[in-house]
Every structure is written in C-alpha cells, then in structure tokens.
C-alpha cells in the first residue's frame, strides 16, 4: 500500500505539472497559433479522452466477465475515424467554419438557430452524462481507496468496499477547481481551449504509458507465455454466446455514434479542430491509440483471473495486480493513469457541458428576463464566465450527487453504456442536418425528445432498479400491469437485452419522427439558409451568401453588444477600420461578422438573439435563398433546363433552317419566275423591235412584205398583252390577294359557255367539238366566270394542239364518286408524254413543238382556279389516243 498523504502529494504534484503544461500551452498558442499545440499529434491525443477511466479500469473488468465484448467500444470509433472522409470530415469542417461551440450549438445553429433545440440537447446531455461523471468519481474513489487501503490492495479488491464519500467529495471539488482554472480561466471566452488541450494530451500519454506498463509488467512478470496466460480463458473467447451478434453490432454502432456525439468528444474533435490536417492524421493515429491501449486488456484480465483470489473486483485488476505482486511503483503509475483518464474526461466533459449550459440555458433565460448586466466594462463578460464556472460546479456535483444517491452498484461498463445510449440521441439530427435540406427544427425536436424519453423509460430509469421514480414492479411487468409497456420489452419485443432494446427503440422512433415531422412542414427561411451553409460546406463559398439576410442596425448599438460580450480589444478590431467618417448604419457584412464572433462565444442561438435586439428590420430574401438553397439541385435543374432548351433551340433551328430552305426555294422560284417572265416578255419585244426597225429602215419593201411584218408585230403585241394578263391573273390567284364573287351554280352552264366561245376557233382549225354526257342538277360552289375561263383554256388547248387528221374534242360532265363533280375535256391529238403530265401545269411550260401563241400560263392558272374552289385539275390519258384533262369539283347538295 501507499500512504494516503503520499498519494495525495503525487496527485497534487501531477496536477501542478498539468497546470504548468496548460499555462505554457496557452502562452505558446497565443504567440504561435500554428505551433505544436495545433499539431495533429496533440489533436489526436486530445481525442483519446474517449478512453476514460471506464477504459482504464472497466475494459479489463468487462474482458474478465464478458470476454471480447469490450472491444466493440473501440471498434466503432475505429471504423468512424478510418472512414473520416465520409462523415467526420464534413462535420469537422462545418464546425470549424461556423465556429461551433458545442454539439447543442451545432444542431441549434443548423436548424434555424433554434434556442429550444439547443436547450433540449443541453438538458439531455446533462441528464445522460451525470451517471458517467458519477462513474468517474466512483473509479477515482475506488482506486484511491484500494491503493491506500491499510490491509493491502488484494483485501480491498476482494471485499465489497463502501465508497468513501469524503474522498469522493474532495475529488469532485478538486476536479471543479481544476476544470475552472483550466477551462474557464480565460477572459477570452472563445470556443477553443489550447491550454486544456495541451494538458489533456499529456494525460493521454500518461494513461497510455501507464496502461502499457501494467500490461508489459503483467506479461513479463506474471504470465510469461501465452499458454500460461490463456489457461483459464473464458469460453466466450472461443465460442459466441446467445445474443452475441445483436449486442456486438449494437455496441459497435453505439460506440461509433458516441465518439461523435459525446459532448466531450464533440468538443475535442469538432470544436477544438483547427485544420483538416488534424483530422486526417487522427484518422489513423486515433485507431492506433485505441489499438495500443487495448492490446493488454485481455492479458491483464487473464492474469487477474489467474493470480487474484476469486471474488476480486475485475474492474480494479489494473491496480490490484501490480500492487499484490510486488509492483508498487507500477501500481502507482497505474493509479496515475486511472487518475489521468478520469480527470481528463471530467474536465473536458464539464467544460463542454458548461459551455452548453451557459450558452443554451443561462444566456437565453438571462436575455429573456434581462438579467445580463448592461453596465460597461467587463460586467457582461464576467456574467458569462460566472455562468460557466457555476455550470462546471453544477455538472460535477450533479455527478457526485448521483454517485452518492445510487451508490453506483453497477459495473463501470454498464453505466457507461447507459450514458452512451442517451448521449447519442442527437445523431439522427446531426446526420440529417449535414445531408438533408428538408430537415426542420420541429423534426429535430420531435425526434430528440422522443428518443430521450424512450431512453429514459427503457434504460435510464430502470437502471436505478426501483430506487428512483420507477418501481421494481414497473420494471418487471410494465406500468399498471400493461406488459406491452414493459420498459425492457416494449410492444412485446423481448428478444434483446435491455441495452440493445433501448437503443433500437430510441433510435428508430427518433429517426422516424425526425423524418415524418420534417416532411409535415416546410423549413423556415432561416433554417433553409443554415441548411445550405452546412450541407454545401465544400461548395466554394461566394460572397453572395451575405446577400440572403438583409438587416439594419445602428453601428453604435451593435458595438455596445460587441463591447460587452467580446471585450474592447476584439471590438476595436471589428469596428475601427480607420474610416474617416464612421457609418451610422451597419452594413449586412458587419452585422453578420459581429454575429459570427458572438456565436463563437455564446453560441449561434444566443448570438442571434443578442443581435436581434439591435436589429430594427430583418428580411431574409426568399429569392436569394431559393437561389442558394440546394445550389446543387439548381445546377442540376439548370443543366436539365439547358438541355431541354438546347433541344428546343435545335428544334427551332431545324424549323428555321427548313423555313429558310423553303424561303430560299421560293426565292429561287421567284427568280426563275422573274427570269422567265423577262424572257417571255423579251421574246415578243425582240420581234416587235426588230421588225419595226426593218420597216423603218427599208422603205423599199413591197407592200405584201410590209403587211406580213406588221402582222407579226401585231400578233406579238397581242401575245405580250396575253402574257401580262396571265401574270396578273396569277398574282390575283395567290392566296388572299383577291376574293371572287362566289355562288352556287351548275357547272354545265360554264361548259356550255366555254364551248360557245371556242366555236369560232374550232371552226377555223377544222376541229369538231362534241358535247358528251352531261350531269343533271349538279351544283358546285365557286365563280362561274372563272370556271368558264378554265374550260375555254382547256378546250382551246385541245383545239390548238390537235394534230390529228380528223381532229375532235369531247367535253363530258358527270356527278362522280365521293361527292365530286367531274368534267372531262378529251381530244384525239398526239397526247401528252407521261413525264410532262405534271410539268405542263408549271408556269411557262410549253410543249417542245407547240411554241406558237401560248405563253405557258393557261394551265397553271386553270389549276389554281380549280384548286381555289376545293377541286383539282389533272391530266390523264385518253382511253384511246390523245389527252384528257379532268376537272373535279366538290358537289353542293343544299
């Protein structure tokens, strides 16, 4: 045994060294922020406060009782850190960029700076961590009692030791002092604590060295060979027990979540983080630390089982083994290791919690009831410091009270797990907050509250075994005999042990409510804005984000707040930019900057509430927000839109190209037409000019010759006139240029009139016109005169081009099929070659041989007229010989 005084002296000396380290650390950090204290090594060592006295003493106890199971507590974090790229990286970056002060601050800031959410998480953490702190006090007290037990450590460890609450009280008091002096000593209430981190890193080294020293000592002094060591190995090492799989998976999940969500872990991993390099190194160094500290757990447990009398408390093997086998110095080192692990855990936990309590409970209440001193100087800042110190004392003594009341009978590990299960309830909100834009603060509150209540009901209250709030009967049979409400078998789910059962129900309901309640209502604009800032943290940030929230505040009032909370030094750096004429109204940038700095001190929710007091108007630009909100979606939508637009543009371009082609074609047609017209006009003009010149110059011509030439001039003039008439007709026929008087009439009358008109021409050419079959009472809609013109055209063509020896033209009319009237003009002339049957309807087309007289416009004009009346004009071949033209017009029956 060691003398109590000696042990106390060692402890105090050790604490003094730690204090020196912390003090030097703070000074160094102020001089050189990027120095050793921000090194990845120190960062990783600080994260190892995960290994509290629960690890130091409890792992061995658990290994002795349950074999492998203790490993799950370290495998979960190993997976999480090895997979830092997936989640931790984002979490840490968001925390660093937004100067998060705690997990409560993180979640409350993410969900629209909700004060309720911050307070809820703070209360949850406080309740859940109390047994954990009690656990540390118990371990410290027990280890102190064992190491100083007059009858020797073995005796102490093998009999039920009544906790010495006097020792526990002084330890608690010492821890309070320690935490206050280290953590909240600074006037600078900043989110980072360099000094404490330095001390914690030293403690991390001490506990690792101490534990490994014990392990090596056990191995070389007691066990010597593996065979000897594993002589009495528990069966569970070789074969899985019932329920092993579920518990193993559940514990891995639990520990993986805990290494993120525990307030102290969040503090050291996220809040104290200053660069990505730190987390990158921690991704392998922290698993390595865990591996090393666990390497000797089983050897120590086995040695304890082999060498200590039955009934010895396995939770204290680390201490009792060396003490009873002549390793007093190793024992003292083990005690120091345990002391380190417990104190570092309590210090960081209480600092983290005090920040949460002061920022999320004290400040909001003080602001609500105007309790924050408004006087000048340091009063407001002192108020915050006092609030934090009080919170530390409160937290630690809550743990002490729990220890005192419950006399913590459970083994260290089981208490730790109960605490873990409560503390990881923020996990769903944390994950949703980092990945799901739609998550709302209502959803987070609902999920957290439900998870918390289920945890309390199924795990926390039953852990008192009927001593607190919940009776033993309720624990065994459910309230009011309702067995489906049995705390250890909700809805009859009794396949799991209580821990897995509680974890399953609390996480399931928590997540489900978070999702469902979030989907019920749209997030508020501020929540949406914060979601964008958090979720899109790796998106390159643009200045335009400042444009979302537009606020107005007087610079003087804003400065007053900054002076009070941040202190004059920082305030000067924020406000005095050397402007000649200081602005009266603060810019959005300045307000945001001040709020950010305040948030780093008192949390986002309180900072917002502080700033809101001097802000006279605030609008969150919904448009800006929409622009920002899910820029990724926007980009996706935008590119989809672009795609559809470009498709549209392509289609339009194709249409345009088509239209252009058509226009060009029409243009070409127009040019051709003009060129043809000019040619057609020039031809008679040429003759006219030439012959008139001949007549003028050759007065000696004989009379008959003169008359012949004059005749040519006359006929060419007529041709010219017909040509111009035809062109005019064509123009009139263009759609929409002219309306004719349209009547319903008998088309046979048009035929009769046309034949009458052509009779002289036919007689001159010796052609017989035969009137064939005629329809009775046929009625068509159109212009009789125009239709007559068409028939004159057809009949005169048939007369002119008929080279037959016995030329004749037959015209018939009949009501044809499908409600059409059909008139046919048939001749017995040479006929029209198949290839020309459509060409003859194009303008200025004339048969090769038939050049005289015609201008080549008659058929195109005729076709256009007939088409205008809804019919058609086509050329077929006569049954025997010659050409046949068919005019079809729709019949009218009214």
């Amino acid at each position: 045994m060691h003398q109590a005084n000696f042990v106390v002296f060692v402890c105090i000396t050790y604490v003094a060294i730690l204090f020196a380290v912390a003090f030097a650390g703070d000074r160094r950090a102020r001089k050189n922020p990027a120095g050793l204290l921000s090194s990845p090594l120190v960062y990783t060592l600080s994260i190892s406060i995960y290994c509290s006295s629960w690890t130091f003493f409890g792992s061995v106890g658990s290994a002795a009782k349950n074999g492998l199971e203790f490993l799950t507590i370290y495998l979960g974090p190993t997976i999480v850190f090895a997979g830092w790229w997936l989640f931790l990286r984002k979490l840490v970056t968001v925390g660093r960029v937004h100067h998060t002060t705690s997990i409560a601050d993180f979640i409350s800031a993410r969900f629209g700076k909700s004060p309720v959410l911050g307070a809820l998480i703070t209360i949850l953490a406080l309740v859940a961590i109390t047994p954990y702190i009690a656990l540390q006090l118990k371990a410290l007290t027990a280890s102190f009692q064992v190491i100083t037990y007059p009858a020797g450590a073995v005796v102490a460890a093998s009999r039920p030791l009544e906790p010495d609450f006097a020792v526990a009280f002084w330890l608690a008091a010492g821890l309070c002092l320690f935490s206050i002096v280290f953590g909240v000593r600074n006037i600078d209430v900043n989110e980072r604590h360099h000094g404490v981190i330095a001390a914690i890193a030293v403690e991390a080294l001490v506990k690792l060295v101490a534990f490994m020293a014990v392990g090596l000592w056990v191995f070389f002094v007691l066990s010597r060979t593996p065979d000897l060591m594993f002589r009495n190995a528990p069966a569970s090492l070789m074969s899985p027990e019932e329920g092993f799989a579920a518990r193993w998976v559940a514990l891995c999940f639990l520990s993986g979540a805990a290494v993120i969500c525990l307030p102290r872990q969040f503090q050291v991993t996220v809040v104290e983080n200053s660069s990505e390099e730190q987390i990158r190194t921690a991704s392998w160094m922290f698993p390595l630390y865990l591996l090393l500290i666990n390497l000797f757990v089983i050897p120590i447990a086995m040695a304890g089982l082999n060498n200590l009398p039955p009934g010895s408390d396995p939770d204290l093997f680390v201490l009792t083994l060396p003490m009873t086998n002549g390793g007093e110095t190793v024992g003292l080192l083990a005690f120091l290791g345990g002391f380190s692990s417990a104190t570092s855990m309590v210090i960081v936990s209480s600092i983290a919690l005090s920040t949460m309590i002061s920022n999320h409970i004290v400040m909001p209440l003080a602001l609500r009831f105007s309790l924050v001193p408004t006087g000048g100087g340091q009063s407001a800042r002192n108020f915050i410091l006092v609030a934090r110190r009080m919170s530390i004392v409160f937290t630690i003594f809550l743990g002490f009270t729990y220890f005192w009341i419950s006399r913590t009978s459970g083994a260290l590990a089981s208490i730790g797990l109960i605490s873990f299960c409560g503390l990881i309830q923020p996990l769903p909100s944390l994950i949703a907050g980092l990945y799901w834009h739609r998550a709302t603060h209502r959803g987070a509150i609902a999920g957290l509250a439900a998870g918390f209540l289920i945890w309390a009901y199924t795990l926390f209250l039953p852990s008192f075994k009927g001593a607190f709030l919940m009776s033993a009967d309720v624990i065994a049979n459910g309230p009011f005999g309702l067995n489906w409400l049995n705390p250890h078998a909700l809805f009859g789910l009794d396949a799991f042990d209580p821990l897995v059962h509680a974890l399953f129900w609390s996480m399931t309901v928590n997540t489900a409510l978070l999702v469902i309640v979030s989907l019920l209502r749209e997030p508020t604009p501020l929540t949406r804005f914060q979601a964008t800032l958090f979720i899109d943290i790796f998106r390159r940030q643009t200045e335009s984000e400042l444009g979302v929230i537009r606020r107005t505040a007087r610079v003087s009032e804003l400065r007053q707040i900054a002076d009070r909370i941040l202190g004059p030094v920082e305030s000067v750096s924020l406000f005095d930019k050397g402007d000649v004429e200081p602005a009266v109204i603060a810019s959005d940038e300045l307000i945001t900057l001040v709020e950010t700095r305040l948030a780093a001190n008192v949390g986002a929710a309180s900072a917002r509430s502080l700033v809101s007091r001097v802000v006279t108007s605030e609008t969150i630009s919904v448009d800006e927000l929409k622009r920002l909100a899910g820029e990724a979606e926007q980009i996706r939508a935008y590119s989809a839109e672009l795609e559809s637009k470009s498709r549209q543009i392509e289609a339009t371009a194709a249409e345009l190209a088509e239209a252009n082609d058509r226009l060009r074609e029409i243009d070409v047609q127009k040019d051709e037409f003009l060129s043809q017209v000019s040619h057609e006009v020039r031809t008679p003009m040429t003759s006219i000019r030439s012959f008139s010149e001949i007549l003028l110059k050759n007065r000696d011509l004989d009379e008959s010759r003169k008359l012949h030439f004059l005749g040519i001039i006359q006929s060419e003039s007529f041709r010219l006139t017909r040509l111009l008439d035809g062109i005019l007709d064509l123009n009139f026929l263009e759609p929409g240029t002219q309306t004719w008087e349209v009547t319903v009439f008998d088309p046979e009358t048009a035929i009769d009139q046309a034949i009458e008109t052509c009779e002289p021409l036919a007689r001159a050419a010796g052609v017989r016109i035969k009137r064939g079959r005629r329809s009775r009472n046929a009625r068509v809609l159109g212009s009789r005169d125009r239709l007559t013109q068409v028939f004159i055209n057809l009949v005169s063509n048939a007369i002119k081009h008929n080279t037959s020896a016995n030329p004749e033209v037959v015209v018939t009319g009949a009501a044809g099929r499908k409600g059409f009237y059909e008139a046919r003009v048939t001749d017995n002339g040479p006929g029209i070659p198949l290839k020309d049957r459509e060409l003859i309807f194009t303008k200025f087309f004339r048969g090769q041989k038939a050049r005289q007289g015609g201008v080549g416009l008659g058929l195109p004009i005729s076709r256009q007229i007939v088409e205008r009346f809804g019919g058609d004009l086509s050329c077929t071949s006569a049954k025997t010989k010659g050409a046949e033209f068919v005019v079809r017009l729709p019949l009218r029956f009214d």
Partner: protein
Amino acid sequence: MRRWEADAQGTRDAATLLPVAAAFLFLPPFLFVFIAPARVAGIPLVLIYVFGVWAAIVFSAWLLARRHARMAEGASDAADAAGQRLPGQH
C-alpha cells in the same frame, strides 16, 4: 493534371471503401468465422484476427491519409495558382 485527378478519384474511392471493409470485417457474420476453439501459438484465434485486422486498418488509414495529404497539397497548389482559397482553409 489528369493523372492527379485520377489519383484523387482513386483515393476518394478507397476512403469510402475503407470503413465499409472495416465494418464488414469487424461485424458478424464474418466475425463468427474466427470465433472458434482454435489457438495460434496459444492465443485464441479471434484475438489474433481482430487485432490483425485492426492493425491492417490503421495501416491502410495511414496510407490513405498520406495520399489525402498529397492531394490536399495538390488542391491548394492548384487553388493558389488560381488565386483562390478553398472553403474551410484557415
């Protein structure tokens, strides 16, 4: 530049795969294969397996961290070259 990007993609893929592989190796049912009444040099097989995998993961994470570090340097070099800063670099 392209090779650097391919490396970066490979590193990211590996970083995603590592925790999945770790979870697979550490959790039942795969773990059950090694919880057997067998000893290697007197040490239960499962202990050798768990600590062996653990060490392998630490080693892989270390390799990955080195590649990430090089990537980050490359990225910040590229960003410096472009005269811009990456978010979250202080």
